[in-house]
């Protein structure tokens, strides 16, 4: 069975992943330009090359309260630039973990990660050596993050 690459990252101690095909870049953003009237989960804009990309704070958007005793050093914070359909955004995460190859048979229906803010965007869960990873649907995520 064919493997599909997923990019794993951590937000507030929760390991999540998106299809690598939806990720345009992984970068470190130091400062964002605030946006007038933006909701709390959209923290600003950043200029990247020939584009201007809005940044989504996943910890806020997914209502993830950190369970870690020590916060992740900001030096490890990363921004995943993802595109899906009409939308592009930088997803702020606490750590980018790298790529994993996943087959459909490894995925299971979400049953452990049940947070109300996270659940609508989970397509499946995956057991890895490091622990449980929640697989996100980037299309649904970005459509929900967009300001109506």
């Amino acid at each position, binding site marked *: 069975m064919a493997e599909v690459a997923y990019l794993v990252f951590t937000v507030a101690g929760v390991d999540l992943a998106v299809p690598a095909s939806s990720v345009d870049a992984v970068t470190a953003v130091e400062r964002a330009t605030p*946006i*007038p009237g933006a909701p709390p989960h959209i923290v600003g804009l950043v200029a990247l090359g020939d584009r201007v990309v809005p940044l989504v704070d996943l910890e806020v958007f997914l209502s993830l309260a950190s369970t870690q005793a020590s916060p992740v050093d900001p030096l490890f914070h990363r921004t995943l630039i993802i595109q899906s359909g009409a939308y592009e955004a930088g997803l702020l995460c606490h750590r980018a973990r790298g790529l994993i190859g996943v087959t459909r048979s490894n995925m299971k229906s979400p049953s452990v990660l049940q947070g109300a803010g996270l659940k609508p965007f989970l397509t499946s869960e995956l057991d890895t050596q490091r622990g449980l990873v929640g697989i996100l649907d980037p299309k649904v995520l970005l459509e929900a993050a967009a300001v109506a």
Partner: protein
Amino acid sequence: MSPSSSPAICSENLALTRVGPYTVAVESDRISRLLQPGKRPSDADIAVLIGASELVGEPSRLLELEHAAGRLVIALHGPIRLERSSTKLPCFFPALIASTLQQSCLKGVVKHPTGLAFVLDVDRLATARLVTVEENISCESD
């Protein structure tokens, strides 16, 4: 609509002003004159428009702008800085925040030497129906 589709184009000449933490730009060819506050009533206040009225003091100057159907006057709260580019500037309009920009009568974002600036949509400001809610004025989406 692709997020990476070509952005619109803004004039190479911009007038920039700070409103709290935001930099707002007006295309210079829209400016007809600068007025002292009190010379005439303003049609809109830039700080109220972008939801930053609590962050600024009294208006310090008025800007008369030309739009498709006439002129309007907006109140500003700081100095204006003119910037000229050698070419017209791409004006980005990220789909994720399209509604946010439209509600503040902003046509997009441009890069300038010191950062990003939000470009005022003068025509939208002039033609949008203005709704007064608790002393705030905003642009409704059409």
